[in-house]
């Protein structure tokens, strides 16, 4: 019986539900020092003076770092001082760091540091950043050290420009009979992971750097700390226990750099840092904002001919992952449609806002909000049913993507099947708006989604299987358990491959860069694919070794052996065999002779046939497969006061083979709730000086219990042939279309086009009043 698809409970769940699971901040020791930041109260200002005298006099203060130049940091462009020097560029930027005996003293001393600022004019949006006389955030971005393939525009606020040039836009426009042009936007926001970021760093006398961090990217911490501070990469050892929610935010390396510097300032003693919620929201990187302009051309019967698109990603003060976000947004710059002519310019633009990390969906939710809203607006103009328009243009095997990848049945999911299933589930063909009472109507809205990953072409993963004396297996993979249950799914794969009971597979939850094979980063819904392939290869390797030694013991050809239920036995005579426990540590003959030795299965996987994007056209193969889906939202809308309640949210996703049904459903509903909160409520509010007015959970509220709609999740299973058992990504897909579906739904309900997030009743009221 197959264990693939079964709702196996994740291995760490008992620890979690009893509160015994340990996260980075839970580890403590008396030898730890503690560091606390002082953050900027201005979004753009010269630092006139920093007075640390009083803070230094507090008993228990060990060091204060401020105003000192350290190597610049940043994942693709090194534009970010770890601690501000001379000026600050966003509200929340680290200006000083206090290291002290305990957290209280650190906090006390931090509050005594006096900083004088000279405010500078601010850039408060991406479009402002592009104005002719806009203040420059960085004197000359092109002078910074940067990775290959980054395309900043010198002496501007543009950190990266990605071009997509597919077909000929002129041809597309000449063939178009109906056109639509519209702008869309939303402010930066935050992930609000339950666990705020935490890290401990120590520099040992022998030069080894030990870091423990709540991270989705321990291997990237290792590399970047080594690069930034010129330390042998093997001397940086990072470990990560369970992580209490990442959502992309913990894929950026930021707090680790500060903890390293803090440790260095106190002679390498271990230093612990734990973000307050406020720091986690604005000082550490958050969720990117966007301004978008979309022009669509179509024939009068709804055949899309051309898309001309500008995306301005709000990179905040430092580019870090925003460069990559602007690239990912360009790669899948449309919805999942076949459009012959696509012209897209995607920019990562500096502003005086907090800077972004990845966010679940990695630029896809953002782009899809704009594009899928534009699709509904076009369908309105065409007087065509929004789902019919999507069905007519759905991308199919044989079609080419915006980056000109020719698709086949394996590399793209089944868009028409998702649309059809959704149509039935939500009774789309009945009335779209129903009157419930005097002021209440029910309305539905839909959208389609797709996502590929744009992770580096050489992204890889490795896995090791070791055995215990009882024949059970230890599974060691570099995937961080961020709450997605991926490590349990990997155990299911081993159990399936080796036809053994999953109870006999023990998963190592912690990742240690010194002893765990690398998994690039636990991001991009790529855990089950990359790590899954590595794990299957490791299982194959172990199987070979088991059979080899068993063939000696059983005096049989390897080809005559079969493995199941933790035994290797003869195909023809299953009772003749050996249990793993007899051979996994070497086989011992009755007279004491031993052969074999420990069995250690090893496996790796590296992405196949990926290419960089052509700098002029964007052509290239960015990732292995497109997961697709169709989503809907149904609301009860009050036509008098514009309040609404989300009644139902529906996702039909083609995630290939479902590996763990309830696990997948949990990922999808969790992502949907996050998408609804982002669409309906979350977003930083900035004042005229670009300061964040709501950097607290009092005023910035993610979705609460009691506010959830009914979630309906259904899967289409079109296999991705390269992937273990044919699975596709499922970690992010549920989020992708929620803001767009909600905006489409509320636009229908309210009778005004809603093109900005968050979709609050006040925003709808302003649109109704024409304010």
């Amino acid at each position, binding site marked *: 019986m197959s264990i693939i698809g079964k709702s196996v409970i994740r291995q760490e769940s008992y620890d979690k539900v009893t509160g015994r699971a340990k996260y980075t901040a839970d580890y403590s020791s008396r030898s730890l020092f503690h560091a606390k930041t002082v953050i900027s109260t201005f979004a753009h200002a010269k630092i006139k003076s920093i007075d640390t005298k009083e803070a230094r006099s507090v008993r228990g203060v060990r060091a204060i770092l401020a105003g000192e130049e350290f190597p610049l940091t940043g994942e693709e462009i090194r534009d970010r001082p770890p601690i501000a020097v001379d000026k600050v560029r966003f509200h929340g930027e680290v200006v000083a760091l206090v290291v002290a005996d305990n957290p*209280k003293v650190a906090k*006390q001393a931090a509050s005594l540091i006096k900083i004088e600022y000279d405010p500078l004019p601010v850039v408060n949006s991406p479009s402002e950043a592009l104005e002719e006389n806009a203040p420059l955030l960085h004197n000359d971005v092109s002078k910074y050290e940067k990775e290959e393939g980054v395309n900043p525009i010198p002496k501007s606020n543009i950190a990266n420009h990605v071009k997509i040039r597919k077909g000929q836009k002129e041809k597309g426009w000449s063939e178009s009979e109906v056109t639509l042009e519209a702008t869309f936007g939303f402010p930066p926001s935050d992930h609000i992971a339950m666990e705020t970021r935490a890290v401990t760093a120590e520099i040992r006398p022998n030069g080894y750097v030990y870091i423990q961090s709540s991270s989705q990217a321990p291997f990237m911490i290792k590399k970047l700390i080594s690069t930034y501070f010129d330390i042998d990469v093997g001397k940086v050892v990072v470990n990560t226990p369970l992580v209490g929610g990442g959502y992309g935010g913990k894929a950026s390396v930021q707090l680790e750099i500060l903890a390293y510097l803090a440790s260095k300032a106190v002679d390498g003693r271990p230093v612990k840092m734990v973000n307050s919620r406020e720091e986690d929201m604005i000082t550490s990187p958050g969720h990117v904002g966007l301004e978008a302009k979309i022009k669509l051309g179509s024939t009068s019967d709804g055949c899309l001919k051309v898309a001309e698109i500008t995306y301005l990603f709000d990179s905040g003060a430092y580019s870090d992952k925003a460069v990559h976000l602007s690239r990912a947004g360009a790669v899948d710059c449309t919805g999942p449609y076949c459009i012959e002519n696509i012209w897209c310019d995607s920019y990562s633009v500096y502003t005086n806002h907090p800077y972004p990390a990845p966010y679940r969906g990695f630029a896809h939710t953002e782009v899809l909000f704009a594009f899928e809203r534009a699709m509904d607006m076009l369908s309105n103009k065409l007087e065509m049913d929004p789902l019919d328009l999507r069905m007519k243009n759905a991308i199919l095997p044989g079609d080419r993507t915006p980056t000109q990848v020719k698709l086949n049945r394996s590399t793209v999911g089944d868009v028409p099947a998702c649309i059809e299933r959704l149509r039935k589930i939500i009774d789309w063909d009945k009335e779209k708006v129903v009157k419930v009472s005097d002021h209440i109507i029910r309305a539905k809205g839909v959208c389609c989604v797709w996502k590929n990953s744009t992770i580096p072409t050489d992204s890889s993963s490795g896995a090791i299987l070791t055995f215990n004396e009882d024949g059970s297996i230890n599974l060691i993979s570099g995937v961080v358990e961020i709450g997605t249950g991926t490590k349990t799914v990997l155990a299911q794969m081993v159990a399936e491959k080796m036809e053994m009971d999953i109870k006999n597979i023990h998963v190592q939850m912690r990742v240690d860069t010194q002893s765990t094979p690398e998994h690039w980063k636990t991001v991009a819904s790529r855990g089950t694919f990359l790590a899954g392939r590595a794990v299957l290869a490791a299982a194959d390797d172990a199987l070979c070794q088991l059979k080899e030694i068993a063939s000696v013991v059983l005096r049989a050809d390897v080809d005559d052996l079969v493995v199941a239920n933790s035994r290797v036995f003869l195909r023809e005579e299953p009772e003749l065999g050996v249990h793993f426990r007899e051979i996994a540590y070497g086989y011992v003959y009755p007279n004491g002779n031993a052969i074999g030795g420990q069995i250690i299965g090893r496996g790796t996987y590296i992405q196949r046939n990926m290419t960089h994007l052509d700098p002029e056209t964007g052509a290239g193969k960015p990732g292995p497969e497109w997961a697709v889906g169709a989503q809907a939202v149904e609301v009860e809308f009050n036509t008098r*006061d514009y309040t609404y309640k989300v009644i139902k949210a529906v996702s039909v996703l083609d995630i290939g083979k479902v590996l763990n049904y309830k696990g997948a459903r949990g990922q999808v509903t969790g992502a949907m709730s996050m998408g609804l909160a982002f669409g309906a409520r979350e977003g930083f509010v900035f004042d005229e000086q670009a300061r964040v007015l709501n950097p607290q959970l*009092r005023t910035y509220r993610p979705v609460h219990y009691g*506010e959830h709609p009914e979630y309906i999740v259904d899967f289409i299973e079109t296999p991705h042939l390269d992937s273990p058992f044919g699975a596709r990504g499922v970690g992010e897909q549920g989020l992708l279309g929620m803001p767009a579906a909600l905006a489409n739904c509320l636009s229908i309900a309210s009778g005004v086009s809603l093109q900005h997030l968050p979709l609050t009743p006040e925003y709808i009221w302003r649109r109704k009043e024409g304010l």
Partner: protein
Amino acid sequence: MLAFDFDYYKPSSMEEAVNQFKVLKRTGKSPMYFSGGTEIITLGRLNYLYADSVIDIKSIPECCTMDFEHDNLYLGSAITLAEIEGSDIFPLLSKVSSEVGDHTSRTKITLGGNICGDIFYREAVLPFLLADSVVFIAEEDGIQAYNINEIFNEELKKKEGDLLVQVVTEKKYVTAPHITIKRQKQWESGYPVITASALKINSNVRVAISGLCPFPFRSREMEETLNNRSVSIDQRIKLAMTKLPEPILSDTEASDKYRLFVLSNVLHDILQALEVS
């Protein structure tokens, strides 16, 4: 985590508490009365608030009462909002209390803390403003009674060191027809854009409002206009909207103009509900 230490006192009588406050003050300390502690913790950790000594009032018997005596309801200032929510002793107050914060917070937030705290919505005071309740305040010379509508003007105008002990409400108000409506920025959590509570007494509607201004209020002028049944509800509301106190709040929860839009809808619902009933 708080960056400051404080001394903790737990007096068992009102006199002791008030005296403790006075003594601490005289020795140059910054004392504060403490019941649920939610504001001290949440504002203190952001350095918005400071105290070097706190006086816990939860062992003072008068602060912990929740009972009727001779047709008067006595509610102690140390009763939590969750306790009020869980009892049906004053239905309007139970409803208003149940919409403040979230359940976890309400098991700590107390009646006195909500009325006397720094966070200016102070929604728990609304039913008492409507019911012409009497507050008992422990002062240096003993306990004093005040009509809440005289001593509560934007905030409870007690002298520093005085302690709100009880709020006393006549039974006829406790059982009167009522309604309360809370509207938030989005869905059902967060501070009020508008919270409006109403009681119907002798066929007249009384209304008290939080969220519109940086303080809760009850306006007699508005009530007079709203009860003038010679004109339509719409017109009454229009006129009442010209009699609002100032300033109208405009912040991350809502703009001033939107708050007025919400208020006019809410007033409409209140009048409809109470005039029909």
